[in-house]
C-alpha cells in the first residue's frame, strides 16, 4: 500500500512539474536571432558579390548551410574571426581566389568624361550613384560601399576607385608601438630616471 502511494505521489509531482516546465517553455520562450541574421550582421554589406553570391544575404544563407567562411575580401580577417567565433568553426585565412583585403575605397566618377549612359546606376547595389540618361552621374560618397561593381559596366572607363582619405575627424590614436630600441627595455624598475623636482614649486 505504502509503495503504491509513494508511486502515486511521485507520479503526481512529475505531472505537476512537467506541466510547469511545459508552460514555461512556451510562455517564456527566448526569441533567438536566426543564425542567418546573425551571420548577415557580421558581413560588411558591400554587396560586391566577390564571394560568388549575389549579395551579402545570399552568402550568409550559404554559410549557414555549410559554405566556407573565408570568401569575403572586404570583411577581411576580422570578419572571418568573428564568423569563426559565432559558428564555432576553425579560423581559415582569406581565400585569395575571391580577392584580397584592400583599404576601403569609394567610387569616383570623372564627371567631364561621363556620357550619361546610366549603366553604373543600374549596377550599383546600394543606389549610391545619382544621375539620369544623357546627364552626368555622380557618386554619393557617404553611401558608396566600395564594391567595384560600377567600374566594369562603364563604357568610357571614367570611374576610379579612390582610397578614402583620413581626416582629423575620423582619426584616432594608434596602438603604442613597443620601443624599437630593444636594448633600452632591459632596464629594471629601479633604474628609471628620477622625476625632476621642480624648484619653483619647492620654493
Amino acid at each position, binding site marked *: 500500500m505504502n509503495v503504491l502511494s509513494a508511486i502515486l505521489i511521485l507520479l503526481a509531482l512529475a505531472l505537476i512539474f512537467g506541466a510547469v516546465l511545459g508552460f514555461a517553455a512556451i510562455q517564456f520562450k527566448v526569441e533567438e536571432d536566426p543564425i542567418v541574421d546573425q551571420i548577415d550582421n557580421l558581413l560588411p554589406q558591400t554587396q560586391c558579390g566577390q564571394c560568388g553570391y549575389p549579395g551579402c544575404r545570399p552568402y550568409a544563407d550559404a554559410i549557414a548551410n555549410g559554405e566556407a567562411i573565408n570568401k569575403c575580401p572586404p570583411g577581411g580577417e576580422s570578419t572571418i574571426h568573428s564568423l569563426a567565433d559565432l559558428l564555432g568553426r576553425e579560423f581559415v585565412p582569406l581565400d585569395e581566389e575571391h580577392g584580397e583585403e584592400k583599404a576601403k575605397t569609394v567610387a569616383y566618377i570623372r564627371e567631364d568624361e561621363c556620357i550619361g549612359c546610366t549603366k553604373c546606376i543600374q549596377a550599383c547595389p546600394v543606389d549610391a550613384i545619382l544621375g539620369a540618361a544623357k546627364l552626368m552621374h555622380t557618386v554619393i560618397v557617404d553611401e558608396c560601399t566600395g564594391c567595384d561593381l560600377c567600374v566594369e559596366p562603364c563604357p568610357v572607363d571614367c570611374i576610379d576607385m579612390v582610397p578614402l582619405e583620413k581626416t582629423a575627424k575620423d582619426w584616432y590614436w594608434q*596602438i603604442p608601438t613597443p620601443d624599437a630600441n630593444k636594448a633600452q627595455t632591459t632596464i629594471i624598475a629601479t633604474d628609471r630616471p628620477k622625476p625632476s623636482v621642480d624648484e619653483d614649486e619647492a620654493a
Partner: protein
Amino acid sequence: MKQKIWDFHGGIHPPENKLISTQSPIEKAPIPSKLILPLQQHAGQPANPVVQVGDSVLKGQLIAEASGYVSAAVHAPTSGTVVDIGQRNIPHPSGLTGLCLVIETDQLDQWGERLPAIDYEKAEPAELLQRIRDAGITGLGGAGFPTSVKLNPSMENTIVTLIINAAECEPYITADDMLMREKAEEVIKGIQIIAQMLMPVECLPVECLIGIEDNKQEAIEILKKTIQQLDAEHQIKVVSIPTKYPSGGEKQLIQILTGKEVPNGGIPADVGIVCQNVGTTSAIYRAVALGEPLISRITTFTGKALATPKNLEVLLGTPIQDLLNDCGLSEEKLSRLIMGGPMMGFTLTDLNAPIIKSTNCILASTADEIPVPPPEQACIRCGMCAEACPATLLPQQLLWYSKTKDFDKALKYNLLDCIECGACSYVCPSNIPLVQYFRFAKGEIRAQELEHSRSERARQRFESRQQRLDNEAAEKEAKRQARAKAAADKQKKMRSAQEGFDAGTAEKHTEADTADDKAAVIQAALARVQAKKEKQKLETQVETPIAESVVNDNNKGD
C-alpha cells in the same frame, strides 16, 4: 556655513608648476599679420563659410555659420581680407590638415556691426540661448563642446545645480586662474546669466557652485569679494576644494561638490546638474552684455623653453609661432611643444598651427622638464593604476584587453568611462603608457561602431533597392499579363462576333444575346455607312455639279 564637500576615488599629485606663468598680468597679444581660423574648432559639425576669398571683413563679423545643431559659428577676430579658404595645419594630435579660413589683417582692428546688448536680468532664456549660439561660444576648458547645446534645457531633467569648473587641476595651466583674478566681475555676471537661463519659472533659483582648487587662494579671495558686491541674494558660492589631479574632470568635480555620480554613459543633466568652465562664463557675459562674439581667449604660454612665460589674451587664429616668439622662445632649449597640459595635452608637430577656441595652454618644455618617456616594461600587476584611477576602473585589466584587441571585454570593463586623464600612466612603475592604449581602444571601438552602422545602412539600401526592383518586375509582369488578357479577350470577342454573325444569318433566335447585339450593331453600322454615302452623293451633286462631272470623268478614265 562651510559647504560640505566629498572626495573622489584615486587621483594623483603631480608637480604643479603653476607659479611660472602667474608672475605677470594677462597681456594682450599683438594682432598678427595673418589669422588662420579652422572651421572645426569645436565638437560636432564643422562650420560653413559664409564669406568668399577676397571679401573684406570687419571685427566680429560672422564668417562661418553653424551647420547643424551641434556646431558653432566662427567670427572674424579682427578686420582684414579673406585671402584663402583651404587646407591648413590645425592643432590636432594627428598632425593632419583641416579646412581653414585665412584672414590677412589690416591692423585697424575695426569693429563691424555689433550684436545689440541684452539686458540679461529681464531677458527670456530663449533669447539668451540664441545669443550664445550666435556668438559661437563653445566650452573653453578643452573639449570645445558648443555651449548652447549644453545649456538647452531638456524637458525630462530639472536643473538644480550649476557648477562652474574653476578647478584647473592640470599642472602648468593658469589661464582660468588669471582670468578670475583679473576679470572676476565678468565671471560672476556670466554665472548670473547662466543661472537666469536655467531657472525654471516657478521653481527656486538654481544653486551655483564655483569649484576651485585651494592652490588658487588669490582668485578665491577676489571671487568672494566680487560676489559680495554683485550677488545680493548670495546665490553663488565659492567652494575651495583640495588640490588633487583630476579634480577638474567634469564627473569628478560633480562628485566632489555634490556627492552625486553621473551614471554610466549619462550626462550631468541626468542628475540635475549643468557644468560650465569658468572661461566660458566670461565669454557668455561678453556675448550677452557687450554683444561680442567669441573672438579671443586667454591662453597660458609656459614652460622652461620660454624666457617670459605668461598668460596672453590672444585672437583666435593667431599662429602659435608668433606668440611663442613674443614670449621669448629659445629654439635650442625646446624639446617638446605641447598643446594643453602635460597630463592630457598632445604634442604639436607644426608651429604654424593656430590658437583655437579650446587652446587653454601652450607648453614649451625642455628635455629635463618633460623627459622622453622611458621604455615600456611588462606589467607587474602592482595595482597602482587601479588605485589612482578617478573613474574606479581597472586599468591593468583594460590594458590586456586593449593590447589583445578584445574590445568586447574592454567594453564590459567600462572602457568608455575612462576620462583619459593619464593618472594610471603617471603612477605606473613599468612606464606603460596605459592611457595611450585606452585611447587607441576607444578609437577603434568607435570606428567599428561607425563601420557597423554604415554596413547596416548599406544593407537597408540594398534591401530596399531589391524590393524596388522586384516591385518593378512584378508591375511589368502584371501589365504584360493585363495586356495579354485584353488581347485574348478582344480576339475572343471578335471570334464570337464573327460566329454570332454567321450564326445570326442561319438561326437568329438560338444565338447568344451578345452575338445578336453584335450582329445588330454591325447591321446598323452598315446601314449608317450606306445612308451617309447616299447623302454625300446627293450633296456633291447639288453643290458642285462641275466637280461632279470632273469626278465622273475621272471615274470614267479609270
